[in-house]
């Protein structure tokens, strides 16, 4: 807002050359950023596009438990450890206050992750690579995932979900 109101009859005055120039520059910057957003999404290795399915917490829990039962290889601190085959569907469930199960994956192989929550909003934050997704109950977020380096990765909840929020740390183990 200008300090003073515009002079009477400003509406009928021709737009000055310098003002036109600044409007054009602003428009070019806006359009560049808009298209860069799309280009960077594809070429910049940003958060991958993901499909979302409609589900219910009960249904997703049943699928996750069936997935665990099918590929379980052990337990770690009371949380089941599963080793799904490459190119398969992997289920990861967030609930107060744990990520279930611990996943053992193979480096360089592709997996289709299905992530959802059993109770309330959680945040899937893969560390130290820093991938972040919000995880709502009732939605199955699908993302294609190919681990490119071996090691242990932590899944941290980055949406405050109650008194145990800080203890909600899951694990993905990537083998060579």
């Amino acid at each position, binding site marked *: 807002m200008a300090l003073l109101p515009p002079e009477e009859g400003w509406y009928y005055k021709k737009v000055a050359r310098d003002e036109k120039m600044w409007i054009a520059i602003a428009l070019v910057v806006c359009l560049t950023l808009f298209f860069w957003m799309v280009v960077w999404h594809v070429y910049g290795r940003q958060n991958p596009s993901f499909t979302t399915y409609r589900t219910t917490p009960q249904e997703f829990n049943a*699928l996750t438990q*069936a997935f665990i039962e099918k590929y379980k290889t052990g337990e770690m601190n009371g949380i089941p450890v599963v080793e799904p085959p490459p190119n398969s569907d992997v289920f990861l469930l967030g609930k107060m206050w744990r990520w279930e199960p611990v996943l053992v994956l193979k480096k360089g192989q592709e997996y289709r992750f299905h992530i959802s929550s059993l109770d309330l909003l959680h945040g899937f934050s893969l560390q130290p690579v820093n991938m972040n997704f919000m995880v709502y109950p009732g939605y199955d977020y699908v993302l294609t995932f190919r681990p490119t380096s071996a090691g242990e990765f932590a899944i941290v909840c980055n949406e405050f979900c109650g008194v145990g929020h800080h203890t909600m740390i899951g694990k993905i183990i990537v083998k060579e």
Partner: protein
Amino acid sequence: MEEKERKTPFLQLVLDDFMFLLFLGVTIYAVSYLIWGLIELAWLSPIPAELKQSLLGGK
């Protein structure tokens, strides 16, 4: 005299009212994003039956 009687154009009325512009600037995006979100939610499909079948079997 003629100049004074000229009716103020509608667009000038809009552009001169900065509070109305602020209102439009917030409302247009709020409504657009809300409708976009509702459309996205309406178009969500359920988990494919084959996938459920492969894990749950006949359950």
